[in-house]
C-alpha cells in the first residue's frame, strides 16, 4: 500500500441530491483489528481518501502535521489518529469512528488500537461491528495480538471476518 496519497478530485455531482433522496441504502458497520503497526489506520485512511470522504482542509492538516514531524506527503494513518498524543507517538490509543458511503451502502468504520494495553478500546470499537477486517503484516505473519483480536471478534459475535494481508511489497511479492 503506497503511503502517499494524491489529493482526490471531488467531481461536482449534478444529481447528487436526487441520488441521495431517491435511494434506499443500508448501513454497514466495520471495525479494523490486528497487531500494532500492521496498518489498520493506514488502510482506513486509504479507504476514506479513495471514497472521497476526506475534506481538503483535513488532508492539508494531516500533511502539515506530518511535515512538522519531519515526514513528507500524507501519512494516511494521521487521518484517523485524531488525538494529540496519538500523532506525537504515531500510535492509535483509542477507537476512532469514520464515515463514508457508496451509492449502495453507508459505512461506519471503527479504527481500533493494536496495542495490548488498549485492548478494551479495541473491544469497544469492535462490539458494534458487523464486519471485522483483521490486518496481517506479511513480514511478521500471525502474531499473538492478531490471534487475540480474531478471538475477541469471534467472542463478540461479529458475523463476518476479513483477513487482509498487508505490506506485501516489503516481502518482494510479485
Amino acid at each position: 500500500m503506497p503511503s502517499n496519497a494524491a489529493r482526490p478530485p471531488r467531481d461536482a455531482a449534478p444529481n447528487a441530491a436526487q441520488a441521495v433522496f431517491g435511494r434506499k441504502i443500508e448501513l454497514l458497520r466495520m471495525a479494523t483489528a490486528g497487531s500494532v503497526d500492521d496498518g489498520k489506520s493506514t488502510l482506513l485512511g486509504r479507504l476514506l481518501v479513495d471514497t472521497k470522504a476526506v475534506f481538503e482542509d483535513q488532508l492539508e492538516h494531516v500533511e502539515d502535521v506530518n511535515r512538522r514531524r519531519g515526514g513528507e506527503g500524507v501519512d494516511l494513518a494521521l487521518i484517523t489518529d485524531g488525538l494529540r498524543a496519538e500523532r506525537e507517538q504515531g500510535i492509535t490509543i483509542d477507537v476512532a469512528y469514520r464515515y463514508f458511503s457508496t451509492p449502495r451502502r453507508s459505512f461506519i468504520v471503527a479504527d481500533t488500537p493494536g496495542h495490548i494495553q488498549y485492548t478494551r478500546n479495541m473491544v469497544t470499537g469492535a462490539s458494534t461491528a458487523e464486519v471485522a477486517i483483521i490486518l496481517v503484516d506479511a513480514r511478521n505473519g500471525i502474531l499473538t495480538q492478531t490471534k487475540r483480536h480474531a478471538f475477541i471478534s469471534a467472542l463478540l459475535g461479529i458475523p463476518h471476518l476479513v483477513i487482509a494481508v498487508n505490506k506485501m511489497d516489503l516481502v518482494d511479492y510479485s
Partner: protein
Amino acid sequence: MSNTITHLQQLEAESVHIIREVAACFENPVMLWSVGKDSSVLLRLAEKAFHPGPIPFPLLHVDTGLKFPEMYEFRERVARERGFRLIVEKNEAGIARLPDFSNPARVCSYCSRTLKTEGLLAALAKHAFDAAIGGARREEERSRAKERVFSFRDEFGAWDPKRQRPELWNLYNSRIHEGESIRVFPLSNWTEADIWQYIRQEKIEIVPLYFAAEREVVDRGGILLSAQETRLLRPGEKPQKIVCRFRTLGCMTCTGAIRSTATTLEEIVAEALTATRSERETRLVDQGADSMEDKKKDGYF
C-alpha cells in the same frame, strides 16, 4: 445488517434508544439546544422517543448574547409552539467584559472559553444536571471522532481522552459519583448528509439562515461575517450584499456564511455532498491545531 430498513431508520432507532436510556438512567438530565440544524434533529428525535408524552427533561440554551437575531426569533417561537421546557442561561458577567471587536478571532476565543465553556459548566452546576445530551457528531472533527456516546466528565466537567470507559454494543455506562457527569451524544454516528436527508424526510423546521438569500456581509479572508453585528465593521467599512447561506450556525462573530444560491433542501444536500472543505472551516473559532481537543478537556461540548 438488515435489508428492510434504511440507514436513516437505523440511525434514528439508535438515537431514540440512547435518548430513552438517558431518561431512564439519570436523575436530572438536560438536553442542550443550540438552535442549529443538528439541535433541530435532536429535538425531533427526543419528541419521537417519548411520544405521545412530553419530553421528560428540559432543554438548555447556553446563550452568548452574540447569536443571530433569526436564531433568537426561532428559539422563542419553537419553544412556544412545541411546549417543551426551555432554560436559557447566560454568563452575564462574562458578556459585560467582552473584548473589543477589532479582532474577531479574540472575541471568538474569549466567547468560546468564557461564554460557552464556563457558561455551560456554570449552568450545569446551577441546576445540578447529571447528564447533558448534545448534538455533536463524530464526523465533525477529529477529536470528536474519538468520543464515546456516553462521555464521562470529571467533577470539573473535563474530558480525558486517555481514560475513556469501555462501551460495548448498545450498553451505555451511566454510573457516576457525586459531582461527575455524562455528556451524551445521540447523533454520534450521523453525517452531515444524514442530517440533511432526515430534515427533508421529517420536514423539520430549521433557522432560515441555512438557506441562501441576499445578506449584508463583510468579507474576512473568504469568511463572510454578518453585518447585522455592527461592532464587526471597521471604521468606514461598507457591508456588501452577497447571496450566501450558513453551513453551520453559532455566534455572529465567529460563524461565516458561504457564497451559495441553494434555496432548497435538495440544493443544500447537493452542496453538502460535493463540498471539498469541512463545514467547521467556516468557524473562526475551530481553526488552530488541536483546538477542539483542548476545549473539550476544559469542559466544552
